[in-house]
């Protein structure tokens, strides 16, 4: 995903002179093409994220389209107040990209994990929260984000994520994508759990949805899903508190009426005090196709 981001932002930067890329001392060589094709519009802001985010807001207030890129905790919680006040309160088009989201940097430990970002960014007024499932959604999502007149947060993985889409789907911010049809159960993923859900759906009549936008929530699609399925599962590489599962549960409670069986999967409310790969952590936290399939389908 990192490489796809680099190549897409290069194309977008080449086409639109308003695009500026700000990086927090990360991505060595990754943005060489951008630097060559968008001369003067790459800015290594050093390891100083508060200033980086404030600068991005100042740029956006003055007609630029800044894209801020670094490892997720540092582009979100480290400079949360700048995001809240400078970007959101001013309602300016800053695109905030967090790389290595969720447990992508499992081996680096909880300082580099981000299992709270969706919750924290989602609550900010004006903020759009996106979580692309693969490089296709990343590419289309980034294009769509640049058309927004307000801040957008996009959490992406690192590299080698499986490809969900064989071809470009219709893409719009706030519109979920149906990636697999099925009538028995509905499995909702966001970001890298869309692929998890596709695997969990094997051998079952399961519909799989990619909620690449966590906010604004696709309530129209939720109505359809909640009217059509008796069992709905949501998985995310994020705390079970405050992320997509919570957002859907909030919507469900507001909506009232008959409720399907609702099964949220995500990270427990604790820091892992052990090391391990992303797959190992996922397994230990019960965010695997097997666990989801067993819970949902009882097989």
């Amino acid at each position: 995903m990192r490489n796809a981001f680099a190549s897409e932002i290069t194309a977008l930067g080449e086409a639109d002179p308003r695009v500026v890329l700000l990086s927090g001392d990360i991505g060595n060589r990754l943005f060489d093409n951008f630097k060559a094709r968008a001369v003067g519009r790459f800015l290594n802001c050093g390891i100083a994220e508060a200033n980086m985010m404030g600068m991005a807001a100042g740029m956006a207030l003055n007609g630029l389209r800044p894209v801020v890129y670094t490892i997720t905790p540092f582009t979100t919680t480290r400079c949360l107040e700048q995001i809240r006040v400078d970007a959101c309160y001013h309602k300016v088009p800053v695109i905030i990209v967090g790389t290595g989201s969720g447990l992508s940097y499992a081996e680096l430990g909880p300082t580099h994990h981000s299992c709270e970002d969706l919750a924290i960014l989602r609550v900010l007024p004006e903020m759009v929260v996106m979580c692309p499932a693969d490089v296709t959604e990343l590419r289309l999502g980034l294009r769509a984000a640049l058309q927004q007149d307000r801040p957008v947060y996009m959490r992406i993985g690192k590299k080698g994520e499986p490809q969900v889409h064989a071809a470009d789907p219709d893409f719009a911010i706030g519109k979920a994508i149906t990636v697999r049809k099925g009538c028995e159960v509905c499995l909702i993923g966001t970001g890298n759990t869309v692929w998890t859900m596709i695997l969990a759906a094997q051998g079952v009549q399961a519909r799989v949805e990619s909620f690449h936008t966590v906010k604004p929530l696709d309530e129209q699609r939720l109505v359809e899903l909640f009217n059509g399925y008796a069992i709905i599962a949501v998985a995310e590489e994020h705390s079970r508190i405050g992320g997509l599962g919570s957002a859907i549960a909030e919507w469900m409670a507001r909506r009232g009426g008959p409720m399907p069986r609702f099964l949220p999967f995500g990270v427990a409310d604790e820091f892992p005090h052990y090391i391990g790969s992303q797959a190992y952590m996922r397994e230990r936290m019960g965010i695997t196709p097997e666990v989801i399939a067993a819970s949902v389908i009882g097989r």
Partner: protein
Amino acid sequence: MDTALADLDLAARTLRARIIETSHKTGTPHLGSCLSCADILTAAYFGVMNIDPAQPKHPDRDRLILSKGHAAPALFQALAMRGFFPLSDMDDYGADGSVFGEHPPTPDYLPGVEAATGSLGHGLPMGLGMAFAGRLRGSQHRVFAILGDGECNEGSVWEAAMLAPSIGLDRVAAIVDFNKWQATDRSREVMKLDPLADKWRAFGWSVYEVDGHDLDALVKLLRRVPDGSGKPVAIIAHTVKGKGVSFMEDDNNWHYRIPTEAEVAKAKQELGLA
């Protein structure tokens, strides 16, 4: 005193009187902080900045960010006096639903405001972004950010201070309203602020110290930005909290105190505006 300077002097005194009156009428605090930067605002808005209040969004306008956002009562009055909106717009100052309160609203809600500040340490980074945007467009506009000395406790100020000279942003001036106080104590005692000018110099800025109540000196200095050094400019403006009113000067109680009617009258008398 030449005519231009006399005009500035009258503007500064009028600004002070309006701030004090409004504080009394609306219960808005931070009088000491407002009065300490009143001359800086007067010099910038009335003697230096390339601005046209009729075109508050003109791309080539000079920008001023009041990073010490709690001095917004001074900014509001200065903007109104400069013609960005009628003085009568402030009739609802402090009322429910008004935009005029203790901190600046966002630029969309009040012409002349460049950034909604209030949380300290935000203005300079935003100013760097604006200066970067200006440079990219080839604009000659300048960005002035007014910081409090207490505000210089914030780490983000020094993040910005380190980056600006690294990328050669020389059309930015950080003006520190060095009134020697912060909310609860002498600013040099809360955190080790001294030597403040040397700190900025060490970070790679072109540093000037000035009497922050000398309008003539302020105007001359601010007009020198950019100063040809290729560096961003830091101006350490030595000021007095509560400046202009004898019983408020250097008395930190006026960070929060609201003047009585009698105190307003006495203040206006001292300002020669009774």
